C-alpha cells in the first residue's frame, strides 16, 4: 500500500495539472487518460515480473508480496469507494438540506404573513385580551362622546341659523308692514266713509345718531297712535264690511307694531320705562361734612371782578319770549 501511494505521490509530484483550455491552447485536441492506480499497478506488475525473473526473491515471498499488494489495493479501493459514497451521501444530504431550507424559507414567509394578519386581526378584535378589550371600550366611548359633541355643535349651529332666519323673516315682515302702513292713508281715502286721521305732529329732532334713533322711535310711536285713532274711528263708524276689514287690519298692524316698537326700542337702548320725577338725592354724600369745620373763611375775602350788566340780555330774552 505504501508503495502504491508512494508511486502515486511521485506521479503527482511529477505531473502537473492543466485545464482543458490550456491543453487546447497547447494545440492538443485529444489526450489519453490513465489512472494513476493503473500506472501504479503496471509498475507493480513490472516490479513483480522483474523480481520473479531476477530470482532474487523467493517465489513464495513474491506471492506474499503480491497478495499483500492486492490487499493493500483492495483496502485503498474500498477506502476510496467509501469516500466516494460518503461524498455522494454528503451531496445528497446537502441537496436535501437545501431543499428543506427552501421549503422552510417559503414556510417562514407564509407564516410571517399569517402572523401579521393574525396580529392585525388581534389588534382589531382583541380577542381574549382583557386589557385590549378595555382599551377598545375606552376608545369607543371617546369616539361616541366626540360624536355627541359634534352633534351638539351641529344642533347649535342649526338653531343659530334658524334664529338668524327668523330674525330675517321678522325684519322682512316688519318692512312689509311698514309698506302697508304707508299705503294705509290711500286705502282709507278710497273708503266710502270718510275717515279723518290726525297727522302726527312734527317733532323737533336733535342731532346725533342717538337723537336720530330717538326721532325715529318717536315717529313710529306717533304712527302707532295715528293707527289707533283711525282704528277707533272705524269702530265708531257705521257697520261696513270694508270698514270692518280695515279695522281688523289696523288692529292687527297696531298690535304687531307695538311689539316691534318694544323690541326695537330695547335694542336701541331706548327703554319703555319712564324716568322718575323725583330727582336723585345725593345729600348722603355730604354727611359728616355738614358738621361745622374749623375754618377762617369768614375772615377771608374772595377775589371779586366786576362786569357789564345783564339788563340788555334780560330785555332781549324777554322780548324773544314775548314777554
Amino acid at each position: 500500500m505504501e508503495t502504491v501511494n508512494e508511486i502515486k505521490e511521485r506521479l503527482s509530484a511529477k505531473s502537473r495539472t492543466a485545464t482543458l483550455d490550456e491543453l487546447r491552447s497547447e494545440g492538443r485536441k485529444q489526450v489519453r487518460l490513465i489512472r494513476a492506480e493503473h500506472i501504479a499497478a503496471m509498475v507493480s506488475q513490472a516490479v513483480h515480473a522483474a523480481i520473479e525473473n531476477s530470482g532474487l526473491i523467493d517465489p513464495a515471498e513474491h506471492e506474499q508480496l503480491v497478495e499483500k499488494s492486492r490487499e493493500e489495493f483492495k483496502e485503498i479501493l474500498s477506502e476510496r469507494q467509501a469516500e466516494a459514497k460518503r461524498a455522494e451521501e454528503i451531496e445528497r444530504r446537502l441537496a436535501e438540506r437545501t431543499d428543506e431550507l427552501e421549503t422552510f424559507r417559503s414556510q417562514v414567509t407564509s407564516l410571517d404573513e399569517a402572523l401579521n394578519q393574525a396580529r392585525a386581526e388581534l389588534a382589531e378584535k382583541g380577542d381574549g385580551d382583557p386589557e385590549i378589550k378595555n382599551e377598545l371600550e375606552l376608545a369607543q366611548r371617546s369616539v361616541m362622546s366626540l360624536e355627541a359633541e359634534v352633534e351638539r355643535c351641529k344642533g347649535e349651529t342649526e338653531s343659530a341659523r334658524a334664529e338668524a332666519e327668523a330674525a330675517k323673516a321678522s325684519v322682512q315682515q316688519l318692512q312689509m308692514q311698514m309698506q302697508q302702513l304707508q299705503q294705509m292713508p290711500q286705502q282709507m281715502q278710497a273708503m266710502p266713509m270718510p275717515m279723518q286721521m290726525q297727522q302726527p305732529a312734527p317733532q323737533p329732532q336733535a342731532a346725533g345718531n342717538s337723537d336720530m334713533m330717538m326721532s325715529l322711535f318717536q315717529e313710529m310711536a306717533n304712527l302707532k297712535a295715528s293707527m289707533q285713532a283711525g282704528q277707533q274711528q272705524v269702530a265708531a263708524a257705521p257697520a261696513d264690511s270694508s270698514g270692518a276689514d280695515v279695522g281688523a287690519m289696523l288692529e292687527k298692524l297696531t298690535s304687531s307694531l307695538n311689539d316691534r316698537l318694544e323690541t326695537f326700542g330695547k335694542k336701541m337702548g331706548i327703554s319703555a320705562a319712564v324716568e322718575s320725577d323725583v330727582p336723585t338725592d345725593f345729600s348722603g354724600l355730604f354727611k359728616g361734612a355738614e358738621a361745622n369745620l374749623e375754618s377762617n373763611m369768614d375772615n377771608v375775602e374772595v377775589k371779586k371782578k366786576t362786569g357789564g350788566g345783564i339788563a340788555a340780555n334780560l330785555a332781549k330774552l324777554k322780548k324773544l319770549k314775548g314777554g
Partner: protein
Amino acid sequence: MTEENDNIDPSTNNTTETEIGLGKGLDVGTANLAAAVQNDEGGITVNVERNAFLDIPSDVYSKNMLSKLKVPYVVHNTKLVVIGEAAFELANVFGRETRRPMMDGLISPQEQDALPMMKMIISKILGEPQVQGENCYFCVPAESLDVDNNIVYHQGLFETMINSMGYQAHAINEAHAVVFSELAENDFTGIGLSFGGGMANACIAYKSIPCLSFSVARGGDWIDKNVSGVLGVPRSKATHIKERGIDIRDPKSREEEAVAIYYRSLINYVLSNIKTRFESGQNMPSFNDPVDIACAGGTSMIGGFIEVFRDEFAKIDFPIPVGRIFRSEEALTAVAKGCLVAAAIGE
C-alpha cells in the same frame, strides 16, 4: 312788558331792584369757580376762586400764620387744608402739586374728600341767598364726544349741594350760558364756545334755543399735559408758560412754539367736531344769515387766540355761514354771567 324795557339802559334800573337783583349764576369749572350776582350799580359782581386745595400738617403755628396772612384754610381730618389760589402759591413754595376736586370738567372720582372743600368754596363765593329758594343756575358740560362720562352724577351732586345752601338749583349747559352772555345782540342765535380747563363745550343756538350741544375732553389741562410731555417739564411749568403772557401767533421760543401747536390742535379739533355734528344732525335750523361765533373761558384768554381761531376756521369748509368770530371781553367770567342771565330770567 313795557316799551321802556325794550331800550333799557344797562346802567339804570327801570324795574324793581329785587327783580333785577334776584338770581345767581355759578360757573363750576375745572380750574376756577365763579359766582355772578347783579350788583347795585347795574352791573354784575363775580366772585372767583381757584378750584384747588392743598393739605399741610396742622399745628398751631401754621394755623396762626395762615390766619395772619388771610390765607383761607379749613381743618379737615386733623389736617390744615388751604383752599383756592393760595393753595397754588403754597404748592410752589413746598414744591408740591395742588389737589384738584374736578377733572376733565366733572367731579373727580379720585378726590371724594374734596367735596367738603368745594362746598366751602362755593358757599363762600355764592354767599347767602337773598331769599329762600333763590334761583341759582350752575353750568354743566354737555355729553362728551370723545370720552364716556357721567354727567348725571356730577349734575345731581351740585344740585344737592346748592339746594342745601338755600337756593333752588338748576343746571344749564356751559356753552349755552356763553350764548346767553355774548350773543344778545344776535337774538341769542349763533355758536357759543367755552374753552375751559378740563373741557371745551359747544352750543349752536337759535333764538336762545339750543339746537346742538356737545363737549370734548380737551381744554387747558390737555394743553398743559401735552406741552409738558413734549418739553419734558412739569405741568405747572407748562401752565406758567401758557399764562405768562405769550402770543400764540408769534411764538418766541421752543416752549411757546409747543403751546401754540397744541392750541391750534385744540381749536381745529373743536371746529371739526362742530362741522361733523352739524352735517350729521337732522332738522338743524337753516341759517340764511351768517351767525357769530363767541368764544369764552379761561383757556381762550391767551394772546392771539382769536386770530389763530380764525386761521383754523378758514382751513375748513364750515357748513353754515359765519359772520363775526370774537372772544368775550370777560372771557373768565362769561359763563358765570350767562348762568346769571338764565337765573334772572328763570329759564
